[in-house]
């Protein structure tokens, strides 16, 4: 490993130190591309112009390195390449490719730049550019997360397609003697002036002998054939016919089935175990000790599950408070100067501003990711190589863990990334990878599929961090004049990256994301402070990370102040905004929802607005109080993503993200008793069910200056919009999630 890489293993430098480092390393090194990983495996007569396009005499292969958790990025990546390559993506072979640093995420470090995500001024962009270069040098990470796949891919994949197209045209020009300028390309072929065609596949071997043409210009969006228009997802037929293979469906000849049980007090020890009953059960091959628990290997999944439950384990204590009340107690004690994480916003003077004061306290719980496909990995370790089939958001790191544990050189570890049955951040974790590698190491030569029982999956979900907010504010003359918010939570980034062997110096931006970066510049007196609670239960990134709890707390506090002022919730938010892109989003949702029109008694409307990952999102929820509880009637969502790649998929993400946010706000939390999660399955951590789902109308706006990802931004406004609607309908202000702690839902 390079010296820079070694440094990165110890400390992933984020913040000012990294910016200085970027200058020291120099811009040139940061811009130099990594080698194309496809060149080693490419066959005679085939050509790979760059890491994303391979043309062989038989087929065109498009590499889509961002993992697909359901968000549709497999198709979107293919479409970005195909738009410039002039090919029908459905007629190409699309592959996740091999994990490689050539696929490092260029924009993942943007979130660490201490500048508002909506600030796209020259200085902000320069800092992001430097940060991207530093991240590439120190720790080039192929990662799908942070709603970055579209912004990371947008230019580079179109460019990859354009380079391939122009090189194929050059090869055709060399062969035919026709000037490049007289050639066109369409539908996977170069078109000659006489109308005859040469398929790209016929040009592969010619193109392999020339230098790629890199001087290309990307097409103006007005010329697009695919992008910006409704597309059929490449996986939609398979996913509608039961033929889509997920990691859990992978099978190898002679494969055995494993499951694990590790200490449900996460991170606690296995003090001892008795597997005599399990070993005697039908189909059980082995019971292995693994770090923190046991693994059972059997001839089918169910027998492995049954036997795992029959192992008598003696678990050690949890390395964090055993009872939930003590988690909250630690957080309550964290609003102190020595635990101050950051004061990212301090406008005007909240202390001397005059007005009627309001104080309130808010709580957002631990919440599980609980993707429907439980964690799994299929592995085959031999003396010389290891193959692992799994769906992962950081596949290169996963492969490195396999190498470290099995002793196989990294270049002989082959990770085959799989379609994922959801993730919501869960597949950023490595436990299942490490455990599969450990089992594979102990059973070399035998293919093993490791499947988590749902209960194991929930017990080791690494849920969303808990957060408490203490808010106050002032109102006068029918207006909100001051807002002062303190947020306290354990650092999700430190917890998560700690498990990757990385430390993160400096403040954690996720502790105030979704609150400080609001567009309410006309709220002259406002302050946001975040406090870092020492790690409690281990936590990890949950779809929208800090913006989910912080957005709930900030927007609910603002709503309370607006009601105290006697102002209209939508009009007052508009008045406070000084960001035109955001204002148009809020105006759109107001128009869509007929905001202000009368509702029957017992019904109410709530609006909420949160920016996350650079995307302003406004949501309105309409509810009715019935005899048996709150019913969600209708919902609306408007968002500005800068540019729409596929309106159909975007709508699906908008609706699904809002449902995800609403469902967890209604009824989901993880609580600890005796060091263990009290919830174990979907009976106790359900989310929304179909009958509870309101109609949801969506509008996408394209006024923002940059293209944005949309996997996460629909989530944060959902909880406050619902809470604000419940208040409007019932007069009951609920300051704690999930809402069903205080009110029933039908």
């Amino acid at each position, binding site marked *: 490993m390079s010296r820079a890489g070694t440094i990165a293993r110890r400390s992933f430098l984020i913040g000012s130190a990294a910016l200085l480092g970027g200058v020291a390393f120099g811009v040139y090194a940061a811009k130099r591309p990594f080698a194309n990983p496809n060149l080693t495996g490419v066959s005679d007569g085939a050509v790979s112009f760059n890491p994303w396009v391979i043309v062989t005499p038989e087929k065109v292969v498009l590499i889509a390195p961002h993992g697909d958790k359901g968000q549709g990025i497999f198709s979107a990546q293919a479409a970005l390449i195909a738009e410039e390559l002039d090919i029908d993506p459905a007629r190409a072979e699309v592959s996740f490719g091999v994990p490689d640093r050539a696929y490092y995420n260029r924009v993942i470090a943007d979130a660490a730049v201490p500048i508002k995500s909506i600030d796209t001024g020259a200085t902000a962009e320069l800092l992001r550019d430097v940060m991207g270069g530093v991240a590439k040098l120190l720790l080039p990470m192929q990662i799908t997360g942070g709603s970055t796949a579209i912004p990371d891919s947008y230019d580079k994949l179109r460019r990859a397609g354009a380079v391939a197209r122009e090189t194929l045209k050059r090869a055709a020009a060399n062969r035919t003697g026709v000037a490049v300028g007289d050639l066109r390309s369409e539908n996977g072929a170069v078109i000659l002036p006489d109308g005859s065609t040469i398929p790209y596949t016929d040009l592969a071997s010619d193109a392999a002998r020339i230098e790629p043409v890199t001087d290309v210009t990307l097409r103006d969006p007005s010329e697009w054939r695919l992008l910006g228009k409704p597309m059929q997802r490449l996986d939609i037929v398979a996913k509608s016919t039961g033929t889509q293979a997920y990691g859990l469906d992978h099978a190898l000849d002679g494969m055995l089935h494993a499951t694990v049980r590790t200490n449900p007090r996460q991170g606690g020890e296995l003090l001892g175990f008795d597997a005599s009953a399990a070993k005697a059960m039908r189909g059980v091959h082995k019971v292995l000790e693994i770090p923190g628990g046991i693994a059972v290997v059997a001839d089918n999944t169910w027998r492995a*599950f049954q036997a795992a439950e029959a192992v008598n384990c003696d678990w050690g204590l949890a390395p964090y408070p055993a009872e939930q009340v003590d988690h909250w107690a630690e957080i309550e004690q964290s609003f102190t100067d020595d635990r101050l994480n950051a004061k990212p916003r301090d406008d005007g003077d909240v202390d001397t501003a005059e007005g009627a004061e309001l104080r309130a306290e808010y709580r957002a719980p631990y919440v599980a990711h609980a993707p429907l496909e439980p964690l799994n990995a299929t592995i085959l370790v031999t003396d010389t190589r290891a193959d692992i089939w799994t769906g992962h958001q950081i596949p290169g790191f996963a492969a490195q863990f396999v190498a470290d544990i099995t002793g196989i050189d990294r270049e002989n570890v082959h990770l085959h990334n799989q379609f994922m049955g959801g993730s*919501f951040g869960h597949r950023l974790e490595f436990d299942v990878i490490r455990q599969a590698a450990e089992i594979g190491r102990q059973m070399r030569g035998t293919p093993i599929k490791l499947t988590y029982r749902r209960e194991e999956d929930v017990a080791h979900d690494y849920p969303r961090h808990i957060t408490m907010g203490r808010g106050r504010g002032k109102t006068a003359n029918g207006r909100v004049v001051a807002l002062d918010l303190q947020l306290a939570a354990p650092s999700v980034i430190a917890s998560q990256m700690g498990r990757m062997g990385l430390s993160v110096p400096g403040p954690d931006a996720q502790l105030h994301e979704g609150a400080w970066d609001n567009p309410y510049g006309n709220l002259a007196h406002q302050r946001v402070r975040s406090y870092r609670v020492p790690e409690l239960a281990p936590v990890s990134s949950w779809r929208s990370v800090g913006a989910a709890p912080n957005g709930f707390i900030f927007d609910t506090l603002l709503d309370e102040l607006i009601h105290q002022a006697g102002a209209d919730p939508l009009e007052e938010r508009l008045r406070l905004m000084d960001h035109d892109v955001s204002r148009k989003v809020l105006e759109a949702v107001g128009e869509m929802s007929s905001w202000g029109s009368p509702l029957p008694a017992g019904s109410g409307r709530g609006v909420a607005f949160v920016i996350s990952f650079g995307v302003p999102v406004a949501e309105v929820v309409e509810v009715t109080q019935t005899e048996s509880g709150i019913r969600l009637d209708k919902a609306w969502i408007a968002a500005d993503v800068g540019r729409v790649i596929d309106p159909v998929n975007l709508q699906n993400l908008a609706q699904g993200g809002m449902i995800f946010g609403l469902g967890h706000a209604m009824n989901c939390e993880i609580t600890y008793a005796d060091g263990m999660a009290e919830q174990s399955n*979907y009976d106790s951590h359900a989310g929304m069910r179909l009958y509870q789902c309101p109609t949801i109308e969506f509008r996408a706006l394209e006024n923002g200056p940059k293209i944005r990802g949309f996997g996460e931004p629909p989530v944060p406004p959902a909880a406050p919009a619902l809470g604000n609607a419940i208040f409007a309908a019932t007069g009951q202000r609920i300051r704690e999630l999930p809402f069903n702690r205080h009110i029933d839902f039908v």
Partner: protein
Amino acid sequence: MKFTVNGTARQVDVEDDMPLLWILRDALGITGPKYGCGIAQCGACTVLMDGDAVRSCQITSDMLEGADITTIEGLGTPQALHAVQAAWIEHQVAQCGYCQSGQIVQAAALLARDPAPSDAAIDDEMSGNLCRCGTYPRIRAAIRTASRTLQEG
């Protein structure tokens, strides 16, 4: 234990309490039905048993003698789609897609019984099938489309 899966006679020798889900997936290699919860809370493992939608994680082998099982694979194929599958494609319902085998089988059972279900009937029928991605609006729309297709014959 003899039973039929997607029109093919099958015989397995397993414990009486082994669930159909794992017989299908691990013994027979039929992977359309998915494991999500194991306790009939998610519906990802839904199959038809003698025409009724059931959670295959709750059907044990001792209940299978002579049963006629249809999985998503037996409902239709990419080359010969069931009307419900065609509607699922038209509406691009799936995100991760992991629950959709169960959703589609459940919807097919509903429409076989009630070709023109009311909105309330759709809500009742489909609420045992969990979708973590939140594709519910599209599921409702696709069922209405499939209902029209089936009625038009």
